[in-house]
């Protein structure tokens, strides 16, 4: 069994709506990359709209957990349900479409498509999510994140902080039900880390998205009350 536990600070709970399936529900989920499991018999339940921090030392399985939730991996045993859907039961193309239509992910490295400008990157995300181009939504999203000045700029011409805000905009422009962020502030300076963390929380709140952030960045921890600690009790 994975050495994990949940911590909840004394903050107002997000009460689940009656009859609403949880955003994430892991039941004895064991997952790995073919060798020894990275996460073992993990139980975890996240209600819709909740914001969670997943913390733990390197190698504890934080990224593996996100890969499981995104459907890149399927559990070797146990179940992993996202929005009530057992992803292991979906064929790969259906899983791809489910992910595109319901989730968005922000990475430590921005992974923007270098050949496209900022607006086109956001347009590509909407197209792959099965949404209309929504130029107004694209413009509004860029404006809220303060990167509308870079609408026609290629990623290679942006600073790291600007690029991370664009990557966040790309995640938000599809209005995801679940927003996953994998060490989103690790490569940023204090000011940008603060900005990105604040924007993540604000925008997830505005969209009503469930937010799961993996991090070992102390600058982010205090902002989120719900925590899943992996790989060592109290010593992330």
């Amino acid at each position, binding site marked *: 069994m994975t050495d994990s536990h949940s911590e909840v600070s004394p903050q107002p709970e997000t009460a689940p709506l009656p009859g609403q399936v949880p955003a994430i529900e892991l039941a004895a989920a064991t997952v790995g990359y073919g060798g020894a499991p990275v996460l073992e018999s993990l139980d975890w339940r996240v209600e819709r709209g909740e914001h969670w921090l997943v913390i733990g030392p390197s190698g504890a399985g934080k990224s593996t957990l996100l890969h499981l939730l995104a459907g890149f991996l399927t559990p070797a045993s146990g179940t992993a349900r996202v929005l009530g859907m057992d992803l292991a039961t979906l064929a790969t193309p259906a899983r791809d479409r489910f992910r595109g239509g319901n989730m968005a992910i922000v990475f430590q490295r921005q992974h923007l498509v270098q*050949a496209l400008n900022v607006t086109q990157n956001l347009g590509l995300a909407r197209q792959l999510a099965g949404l209309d181009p929504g130029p107004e939504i694209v413009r509004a999203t860029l404006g809220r994140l303060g990167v509308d000045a870079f609408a026609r700029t290629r990623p290679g011409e942006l600073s790291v902080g600007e690029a991370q805000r664009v990557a966040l905009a790309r995640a938000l422009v599809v209005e995801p039900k679940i927003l996953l962020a994998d060490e989103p502030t690790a490569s940023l300076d204090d000011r940008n880390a603060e900005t990105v963390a604040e924007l993540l929380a604000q925008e997830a709140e505005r969209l009503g998205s469930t937010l799961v952030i993996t991090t070992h960045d102390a600058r982010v921890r205090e902002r989120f009350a719900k925590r899943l600690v992996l790989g060592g009790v109290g010593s992330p």
Partner: protein
Amino acid sequence: MSTWSLAWAWIRFRPLGAALNVALLGLGTATIALLMIAVQQFEQRLAADADAVDMVVGAKGSPMQLVLSTVFHVDAPVGNVPAEEGQFLEQHSMIKRAIPMALGDGFRGFRIVGTDSSYLDLYGAELAEGRLWDAPLEVVLGAVSAAQTGLRLGDRFVGEHGLGEAGGSVHDDFPYDVVGVLAPTGSVVDRLVFTSAATVQIVHGMDTDHDHVHDHEDHADDEDHADEDHADHADGAELRSPEITAFLVEFSTPMAAVALPREINQSTVMQAARPAYEIQRLLRLIGFGADVVRAFAVVLVIGAVLGLFTALFQAHEERRADLAVMRVLGATQRRLFWQIVVESLILTVAGIALGLVLAHGVAWGASLWLWEYSQILVSFAWADGEIVLVLTVLGLGVLAALPSAIRAAGIDIPRVLSGG
């Protein structure tokens, strides 16, 4: 952002590499297409010249030389046959007409053909100005012969042995009078000089003896060179046994194609040759040269396709993160597969388009040049095999993309996004 627009964006992101891929594909395609156009034009022109003639009958020897010398006028005649042999042909029931042709001389590279006006009918030639030859030593010029020699109506010139290019003995004593010029036909007629068979017989009767003894030496410096004088030449030739180089035969029945050549070859001092058959033999002979050029062009195309494969593979390696992110954003494996194939298709189509534009542009330029210098009509229209060429190169372009496309579809998202 559709598959096509993203592929286009990726191509524009590496413009130099993409331009090189397109240029290489274009060069290979252009070489093959140009070869196809040239071969087709060559074959069509050979066929057009030969189609008018069912059979050539002349002195025994090489049948190909007989055809080349009497139909295409690109070789020395095999020899002559007695003119009375023509009676056998004229009286034969399977022969519609047998047009006599007497060769031997030329003027500045243009062959002088002694024949009657029915030869012009074979090629649908019409007079542009003047009239047809009538009396001995009157000539009518083909369109190119007139343009290249600068001769005009009323001009006078002397012929030389052979094609009269340089160094041949000159028939100073028998100047020809230009009485007509033909309109361009796009056939071999354009490059000939026509006179009567009797004229050639007169001139060669004198030349064969090498004594230049005849009744008309006094005409060499005669400014008037009257028709009566020409008649005197003809009279003189009648004293000799006339010869003919060949007869161009038109069948009266398709059966003649089978029976007549054998009959002529076995029962006369002449040989019969079929232009259509000899052309096929000729094309098989020169086909080897075309095959060498074609093989070279194929190597060019294969090299270009390998270049495309390398470029796509390298680009794919540089874009693994892009492709992984696309999967994260919801792209299916099929979408990534087609994304790579479409990029290759765009480059391949651009290469093919460039190649065809180059090939047809060069053919167009060549047609203008040839028309200006030789009045030869060359079409730069599509060659028969070009659609096969286009489809083949297109297929190779898709083939070049397959390894990269398969790798893209099977990309390991966690490994790539974690920097592995």
